[in-house]
């Protein structure tokens, strides 16, 4: 069992941020960019870090990576204090990564591979593998000045996973990518999760977060506004979502008096019904000869949840 496996077996989180705080300035001029933020990311978990611009996401990531000096807090990677040694097993994709346009993709990967301690022999093979994995096969010798924004983003992802890290931090990984590229990134994240890699994903793309994240932490004005599993956050307690198909005309009168949020599209009716009245509604549909297509716990979209949450958060001091 290697050191990382032993760490995991001991129940140590892959990433731990505890009581993180960052304050710029002092006294009356003090500005709190991050206040008492705590995050735990387990092995094989994809954890979303959400928040509007200026919420403190990037500052939190920078403190974890040693790019910004924290005012307070504990930062650990695989059970070790988050210093250069602990970052050996970490991969990081910065937001909108930039690479010198005079260099080639192969040169960039060789540089980052050497900085990650890969030997020359393993590096060539690994560089070819990751370039293929991100859809840049055959472009190792291409100058980056010829790369599109999306290709640079793919190269950024390639450098982040080049050394097969156990923990990956991705800051807006789908930024600048077309729909196919976004799907590829989503698949890559799921593949990393399957391999037991812990992924911390900071993103504005809520659909992406909803599709891949097990847990999310939502920041607003430097503080945690909400955290938990996607299901816990989005499921509407005490309500079920129902889809039915039936004869032309309106829903049966016996059903109409039980339900709310009614919508009709593509020949199907959708509505919400309280948990306690589901049986009653289903019986009424059955008696009227309607077909029940699906019956699920009612779930808000992440967009709606996010918007309502940020609307509720009391305005305090602005964060960076």
């Amino acid at each position, binding site marked *: 069992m290697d050191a990382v496996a032993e760490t995991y077996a001991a129940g140590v989180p892959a990433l731990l941020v505890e009581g993180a705080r960052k304050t710029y300035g002092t006294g009356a001029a003090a500005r709190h960019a991050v206040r008492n933020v705590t995050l735990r990311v387990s092995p094989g978990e994809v954890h979303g870090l959400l928040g509007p611009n200026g919420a403190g996401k990037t500052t939190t990531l*920078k403190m974890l*990576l*040693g*790019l*910004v*000096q924290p005012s307070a807090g504990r930062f650990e990677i695989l059970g070790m204090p988050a210093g*250069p*040694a602990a*970052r*050996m097993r*970490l991969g*990081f*994709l*910065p*937001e*909108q*990564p*930039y*690479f*010198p346009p*005079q*260099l080639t993709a192969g*040169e960039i990967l060789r*540089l*980052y591979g*050497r*900085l*990650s*301690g890969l030997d020359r022999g393993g590096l060539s093979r690994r560089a070819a593998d990751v370039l293929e994995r991100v859809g840049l096969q055959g472009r190792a010798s291409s100058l980056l000045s010829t790369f599109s924004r999306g290709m640079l983003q793919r190269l*950024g992802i390639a*450098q*982040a996973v080049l050394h097969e890290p156990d923990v990956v*931090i991705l800051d807006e990984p789908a930024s600048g990518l077309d729909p196919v590229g976004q799907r590829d990134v989503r698949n890559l994240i799921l593949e990393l999760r399957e391999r037991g890699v812990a992924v911390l994903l900071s993103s504005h793309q809520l659909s992406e977060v909803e599709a891949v994240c097990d847990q999310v932490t939502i920041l607003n004005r430097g503080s945690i506004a909400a955290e938990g599993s996607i299901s816990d956050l989005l499921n509407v307690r005490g309500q079920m979502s129902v889809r039915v198909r039936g004869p032309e005309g309106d829903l049966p009168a016996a059903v109409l008096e039980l339900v709310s949020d009614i919508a009709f599209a593509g020949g199907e009716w959708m509505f919400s019904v309280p948990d306690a009245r589901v049986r009653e509604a289903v019986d009424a549909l059955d008696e009227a000869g309607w077909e029940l297509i699906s019956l699920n716990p009612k779930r808000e979209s992440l967009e709606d949840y996010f918007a309502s949450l940020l609307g509720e958060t009391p305005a305090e001091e602005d964060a960076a």
Partner: protein
Amino acid sequence: MIGRVLAIAGAVVADARRRKVVWVVALFAVVMAAAIPSLPSYGVGVVEAVYREVALAVSYVAVMVLTLALAANRIPAEVERRTLYAVLGRTVRRWEYVMGTWLGIVATLGAVTTAFTLVVVSIGWLAYGVPMWVLAQGAFAVWLESAVLAAFCVAISAVAGPVVVSTAALAFLFIAHTREALLEPGTLAYAVYPSLDAFNIIAPVAHGTGVGIGYAAAMLAAFVGWAGALLLAGNVMFLRKDL
């Protein structure tokens, strides 16, 4: 540790190479070739000395300008473009990044200074029929001083932008070459004044037979002291910087 420093240095050299630094050498050769006919017609022996003096002066200006071009904006640009994040997000320590960057710049300057030397020796040989290898001593001194200037730029650029760095670097060069004009030798002020005059060997190279091993060792000691102090200060400042 050394591997990471050398990897960063290699990237700086590769970047400079791709930026066509070689054109600076070509331009320098043209300037030197063009300067030959414009030199005054002194007697035999004197004209070669004048040529050596001009060659060293032009080399000095060219290398210092190139130093500013390579070093003044290196770190600020990497911070602004966030290329630094993917580097420091790895196992790389900040001092390794600073040292690697400086070493890369110094290596590039070394290659360019060597090329300048070959140009001036070749042109001098063709024009006067004498291989003036003593110019290599002057080039060595110019290179050491450019390495000190690069250390100054790297140190200041840890906390300031390229305009401030370039202005400060020019002021540093000016101040560091005015000790003889301002102070009397033997005084305390003279002893503690920050001076780069140790690297000024134009007179013995242009008009004499060059400097000895002892003086070369003294230049090396001055270089180590200056570069060491400046890089240490730069590392301390960069260590505290929020990126």
